[in-house]
Structures are given as structure tokens and as C-alpha cells.
């Protein structure tokens, strides 16, 4: 939904479960994306805990976890959502005079709109939801309710296992061949797959060191840094403003992705495009690791038409530095708008190779995967 259409927004607000108020001082260019005041959503949703009859408690809990930022990252959010759906399907019972497939699809749609209100869906979640709805629609009519529910639950388990867990293992086994001794690997932010690659390589005994590039406001790299150092890997930590200063030391860049689009564009955490561009300028290979279920057939040329807006207040506040309070009342100034983008699009020219569970591909092969293997995914 485009959020600069006033009538649609009003209509959606009436159906909404989470009370959200629009933020002030929105950037004009991004008015088509939702931006809400962040502070009040979580307490308001928490206080309604016992009153949300139509929403299953696990779904509600996962929605709360999205809102509070406890679960983040494409894989994590998708797994949390699928497990919540699994619980909801387990407790589901068909009302009289209704068919299971239609009613369950409607219920899943209502849960999905609740998730969207908590936090806009990631592309991986969208693909998983499409898979689930397809499985529900394809249920044979002859199945009894308990058999149908059991079949759906096993489908969800299989999806998580095949498309995420095993896919990650395959990616790690491919990527290990690209990590040699005396390598200096650079990574940006915190990607679950890249972390697994680095840990596995360290277990195999390869000698390498890692440079973790991080950026405000999320500072996700710090978590990755802690975990890598705890495993004993030699790490360097820097912020994205210094990426061109350390790039001359680097031999390979490993990046994660939220999704890869049909024209080879990598849709990932904001800042990835800059890191990839600097690496390309230095002639360093950029390897993007992404599971195939995250691929999408859409084409995107810029970071503007589809993105997610985060909380602008975290830009104005620096934790631990209360003295830097110049931007404290930024909202009162009409001429000042703060923009906090979550994702950006890296053009395919900057990417050397994409490592997926179907192998190591150039970026131009993504539409082939989407075309050939997506059908298999939906019907298997």
C-alpha cells in the first residue's frame, strides 16, 4: 500500500490493531512509506495482551518481538513467523459451514496484516507466506481436519529445514572454498550466514582475520564482533566512515542480503551498497551470500521506491553521550527532517558472485533461479 494516499491510509487505520500515530516532519520523497511515532506502540500493544481474541498468542508474541526489535534479520524473522503460524495452525479448528482452506487462508491473512502493522514485512517473510498460502490452497479436499493440520505443520517444518537450515549449510560449504589462508575478510553489519561461514572456516583451521564494518544507528556489527571474538577469531572493528581507509588491506568481501532481485540488485541493510562500491573501486571481489528462498522476481533500480523507514529519534540521540544534545528538539524545527532508512539497493555491477544453496552464480543468473526453481518450491 502506498502511504501517500490519504483515503487508503484512513481505511487501514480503522482496521488496525496497533494504535499508531503518524510521525511529524516526514521527508517528502518518502511519503509513500509508513512512518509512525515509535515510542508509544509497544506499551499500547502490550496492554492489550488479553483482549486480542482473534490473534493467536504466539502470533501476538512474535509481533511484540518485532516491535521491540528483539528479533531482527531476514532468517530470524521468517523462522519466528513460521513457528508462530505453526502454533496457530495447531490450535486452529474449522468453524462450522466453512471450508478449512478458505477460512485458514483468511486467518493467516489477518495475522499477516497484524505483522505488517508491527513491522513491515521483509521479502523473505513475503515468500514464506506465499508458500504457506499455496500449500493451504493445494490441500486435497478429502483430507480430514487433523490430517490437513498435520500436513501443514510438516510442510512448515520442511520449509524451515530445507530452505533455511540446510541451505545455510550448503552455502557454508561452497563459501569455505573461497576462504584461504592469510585472507583478510571484510564483512558489513551482522549477517547470520556470513557469521556461520567465518566460524566454520575457523573451525577448519584456516588462518584469516576479519574486519567488521559497522554503522549507526543500529550498530549490529558489535554483536557479530562479540561472537566472533568469543570463538577466537582475529577481528578488527571500524565504522563505515573509515571503510575506504582499510579497504586496501582486504582480500575479499563477504556480504549478506535481505533479498536479491531479478536484475541482480542486492537489497540489503543500508550501507551495504557503499561497502560494495568501495570494494569494487579497489578491485576486491564481493561475494554475496543469500539463500534462494529470498530471491524475488521484482526489479528495483533505486532505494527509494521500496524501503523501510526506521525511528528518526535514534539518529538524534547518541547513547552514552548525553552532552551531544544539539538535535534534541529536532521535531520542532519545520525545516529539519530526519531520515532513517533501513535498506538499500546495491547494483549488480558491484557484485562479483552470489553464493546460494543452488551453487555459486553470477548476478545475472538470479532470474533463472527464480524462474526454474521457484515453481519447484511451490509445488513440492
Amino acid at each position, binding site marked *: 500500500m502506498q502511504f501517500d494516499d490519504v483515503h487508503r491510509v484512513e481505511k487501514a487505520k480503522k482496521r488496525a490493531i496497533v494504535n499508531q500515530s503518524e510521525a511529524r516532519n516526514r521527508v517528502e520523497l518518502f511519503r509513500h512509506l509508513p512512518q509512525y511515532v515509535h515510542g508509544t506502540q509497544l*506499551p499500547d*500493544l*502490550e*496492554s*492489550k*495482551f*488479553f*483482549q486480542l*481474541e482473534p490473534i*493467536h*498468542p*504466539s502470533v*501476538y*508474541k512474535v509481533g*511484540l*518481538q518485532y516491535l*521491540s*526489535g*528483539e*528479533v*531482527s*534479520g531476514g*532468517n*530470524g*524473522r521468517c*523462522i*519466528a513467523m513460521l*513457528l*508462530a503460524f*505453526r*502454533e496457530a495452525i495447531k*490450535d*486452529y*479448528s474449522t468453524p462450522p459451514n466453512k471450508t478449512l482452506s478458505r477460512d485458514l487462508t483468511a486467518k493467516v491473512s489477518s495475522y499477516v496484516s497484524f505483522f505488517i502493522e508491527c513491522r513491515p514485512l521483509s521479502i523473505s517473510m513475503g515468500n514464506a507466506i506465499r508458500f504457506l498460502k499455496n500449500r493451504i490452497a493445494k490441500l486435497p479436499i478429502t483430507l480430514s481436519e487433523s490430517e490437513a493440520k498435520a500436513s501443514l505443520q510438516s510442510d512448515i*517444518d520442511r520449509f*524451515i*529445514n530445507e530452505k533455511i*537450515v*540446510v541451505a*545455510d*549449510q550448503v552455502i557454508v560449504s561452497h563459501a569455505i572454498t573461497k576462504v584461504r589462508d592469510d585472507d583478510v575478510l571484510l564483512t558489513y553489519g*551482522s*549477517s*547470520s550466514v556470513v*557469521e556461520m561461514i567465518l566460524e566454520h572456516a575457523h573451525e577448519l583451521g584456516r588462518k584469516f582475520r576479519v574486519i567488521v564494518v559497522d554503522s549507526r544507528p543500529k550498530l*549490529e556489527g*558489535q*554483536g*557479530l564482533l*562479540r*561472537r566472533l571474538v*568469543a570463538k577466537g577469531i582475529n577481528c578488527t572493528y571500524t565504522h563505515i566512515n573509515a571503510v575506504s581507509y582499510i579497504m586496501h588491506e582486504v582480500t575479499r568481501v563477504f556480504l549478506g542480503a535481505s533479498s536479491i532481485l531479478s536484475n541482480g540488485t542486492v537489497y540489503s541493510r543500508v550501507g551495504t551498497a557503499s561497502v560494495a562500491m568501495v570494494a569494487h573501486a579497489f578491485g576486491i571481489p564481493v561475494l554475496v551470500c543469500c539463500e534462494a528462498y529470498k530471491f524475488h522476481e521484482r526489479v528495483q533500480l533505486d532505494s527509494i521506491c521500496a524501503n523501510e523507514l526506521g525511528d528518526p529519534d535514534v539518529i538524534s540521540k547518541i547513547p552514552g553521550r548525553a552532552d551531544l544534545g544539539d538535535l534534541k528538539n529536532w521535531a520542532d524545527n519545520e525545516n529539519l527532517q530526519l531520515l532513517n532508512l533501513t535498506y538499500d539497493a546495491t547494483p549488480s555491477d558491484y557484485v562479483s558472485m552470489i553464493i546460494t544453496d543452488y551453487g555459486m552464480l553470477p548476478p545475472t543468473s538470479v532470474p533463472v533461479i527464480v524462474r526454474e526453481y521457484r515453481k519447484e518450491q511451490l509445488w513440492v
Partner: protein
Amino acid sequence: ANPEASHPVSLSTLPPEGDEPQNPDLTLPVDLIRRRRRGRWTSRSSSSPEAPPRSSRPSSPRSTAERDTPPLTPTTLINPPFCFSQDVPKALLPVANRPAISYVLDLLESSDLKDIIVVVEGQEAARLVGAWISSAYLDRLVVEVVAVTEDIGTAGALRAISKRLVANDVLVISGDLVTDVLPGAVAATHRRNGAAVTALLCSVPVSGPSDAASSGGKDKAKKPCRLNIVGLDITRQFLLHVVSGTDVEKDVRVYKRKIRAVGQMEIRSDLMDAHLYAFNRTTLQDVLEQKEAYRSIRLEVLPYLVKSQLRSAPSGGEGTIVDETGNVVVPPSSNLQCLSQHRAIAPSAFKQDLLASSGGGTHRCCVYIASKNKYCHRLNSIQAYCDINRDVIGEASHLSGYSFSSHNNIIHPSCVLGSKSTVGPQCMLAEGSQLGDKCGVKRSVIGRHCRIGSNVKIVNSVVMNHVVIEDGCHIQGSVVCNNVQLQERAVLKDCQVGAGYTVTTGSDHKSESLARK
């Protein structure tokens, strides 16, 4: 579908004791200082409140006052909860002319928690409480009253009903809690963090202005040092250290290992435990089984869970099986387990969990800090009783559910006021009360069918039902129970008068507890 499955939170509310007797002829001999740990109510599917433990230790000035009771009391208690009349369980003590338990029950009802187990200590009290609840909440709530033996402690009460708890989480509320914090918020925090226990913390209430000396008449040197020390992590979500007021001597000891694990800990003394907990049922049952000797949730179970957060021994629960293909077989229990398995697979997907990463955290203790604009207070001392009465009519008037007149007080239409009598703001007069001439009532609560003579001044007090006050009395900062007769020109200041007592003519009492022998 199991209706309880949609609300897999079981709550138990324990109302505090108290209540006015429906039938005044049933008064039993009064004993002011008697241990009054009755009324532990646990609500089954919705909430299990816990009886507030009377936890005053000898060092606390409150209990010191209690212990200075006249020798007529059969037992001098080290932990005397305050009580006014033996026949009135604490849960049914009138706060603004509504039994104290009704506030908790209304709170639960407004949160749609309709199935409640109420655990009461003592058979007699249980009978009274059960009778009152079934008459008042006939069709609105499904309440099951369970009587347990006296002095079994809050943990003991939970142990007694632990077989009946079936849902995944248990909400335990003390019956003497007067608050408007939504239990849903606490439950949501509990679920979101997957915690083993979530405790509600509220700011320590400031005691009332004029009757500060109700307890400390004889102790000049001691200040009310009922400190509660809590240690929270930076994000104020997790409870790392809890010490209740009575265990605090001069030093607070914290394990270094804990601080090393989490980096930074914030220690606060301005928060107190409001005795509203959300427990994970399996953890709670395990702890109750293993530690037979535990009697109090606040003093023993909660500190035990907080201390064992960082230990590596798992606290029970099912293990998960990983078969050859690396598939994680999801156990039929909650998906929380599976989620935690995937935490191992995609650890970066989950926000940095300092406790888990420190190696060995198996369960977490979370807190929910009530915001400043919410009212939260516990009825665990006489001072608190007066304060709550005043607050419910005053600041927190939305809790009382009454509508105020233009003078900001509540006067029942059947009251008769004499000429030149004034009733100030934040007062309450219940039905059938009569005031004589030239009376002054300020910031007080007066119960039903009281006969008050002329020239009577009542300030900052609580007067219960069927009291006869003759002319010329002055009552300040006191609590007067049912069926008391104050004869002419009696002066009471910071006193507590037990039920059925007669204060003789012209007597002057200051900071005393009067009871019928």
C-alpha cells in the same frame, strides 16, 4: 478448541484478607495483634494472586510498633500483619467502602480474565471470602476459592494448588494490591522475553504526611528503612539482583560473576516489589517441588530464581532432539523451545542476549516497571491502609469507580448531615450515616450506618460501619473498626480501635491500638 488454549496464561489472585461481616452479630472476640495471613487467593486460569507475606522483621519499625501491643494479645508476633478484627479477613477490609479484594477482581475482570482461583488461608476466612465473592461477582467471574492451612506462606499456597495449574504461564497477584497497572502488560513482557518470571516493580510510595508517627512513636532513632534493593540491567528489562528490605543490613553484596557477565548493572532502591508476578508454570512447579522449605514467593522463590539465572544447570524442561539430517525435531511443547534452538543456528538474528551469551543462562527473570502515572500500592501496613484509603478517594479516584460530587467528595444520598456540618473534599460517606451539627470531616472515609454526634472532628481517618461517635469527639489519623462506640469527648490520634470496642468518655489516646479484651 479448548477455550483455555487461547489464553494460555493462568492467573491466580490471592486476595488479602479482610472483609466486613455481613452480619454484625457474628463478631468474634477481637484481637488486634493476631497474625493475619489469611486470604491467599489464587485464581486458576486467570491469575493467582498470592497472599502478601507479612514480612516485617524485628528490625523494621513497623513491626516494632506491632510488637508493642498491650500484653492482652495471646501471641506476640514477630511478623504480625496488621489486622483490625479477627472476624474480618484482610481481603475484605473496606478500602473506600469496597472490600480490598474487589479492586484486584475488577482489574482482572477488565482484562478479560474470567477464571480465577483464590487461595485463602484459614477455613473461616475462606468461607467468608467465598461468600462475598459469589454474591458480588455472581455472573461476571468464575472464581474458585481454595482454603489452605494458616501460616503456610505464599509459596506453600501455590504448592497446594500447583496440581490445578494447567496453562503455560501463571499470573500471581497478591490480593491486597490496589493498582491500575494492566496485568496484560506484565504478561506481554513475560511472553515477549520468554522469561521464567516477570515481576512488577513500582515506585516506593511516599507515606502520608500527618500520621507518620503511627508506628514510630517509641522509636525515635529508627527511620523506616524498609529498603528494597533491585539490580537491573541497562535496558531495565532483566532482574539481576533482588534483596528485600529485611535482609538489608548495611552492605549489599553482589556476585562479581554476575556483573562480569552483563557488563553494567543498575542498582535502585526506589523500586519495590508489587507482588504481581507472571511465572512460567513448569519453572514454578519445579522450584516448588525441589525446594520444599520455601514459604514465601517474594522472599525465597524470587531471589532463588534470580540467583540461579547464570548457573549452567538447566532448570528442567524437555530436551530437543536433533537427528542426522540436522533437522531439529520440534517437541510438541511450546515453540519457544524451537525458537531457542534456531537461536543457535542464526544467533545474529536475535538481539544480543547478554545473559544467554554469558554461557549458562537457562532462564531469565524480567521486570516490568510501572510507569509513573499508574497507581500501585499494597495494603501491608496500617500506614498503607490509611494511605490507600486516602488515595483512592483522592488522586487515584478512577480506581474507586464512584462518581464524585461537585465538592470532590462522595456522599451517599441517604446520609443526613446536621446544620453547619462540613464535609471536605476527598471524603466519603456511605449510606445511612448521620452527622450531627457542627461536624467537620476532612479527607476521611466513613462507613455505613454510622451515627456521629455533634461537634465531632474527623480528620484523615477511616471509620468503618455501624460506629457510634458521640458528641465532641476528635479523631485524627486513626482507623476505627466496626461496631465501635466512642463516648463523649474522646480524643483519638493515630490510633487503631478494634471492632466492638468502647472508648470511654473523655479519654485521650495517642498512637495506641485499642482492642476489646
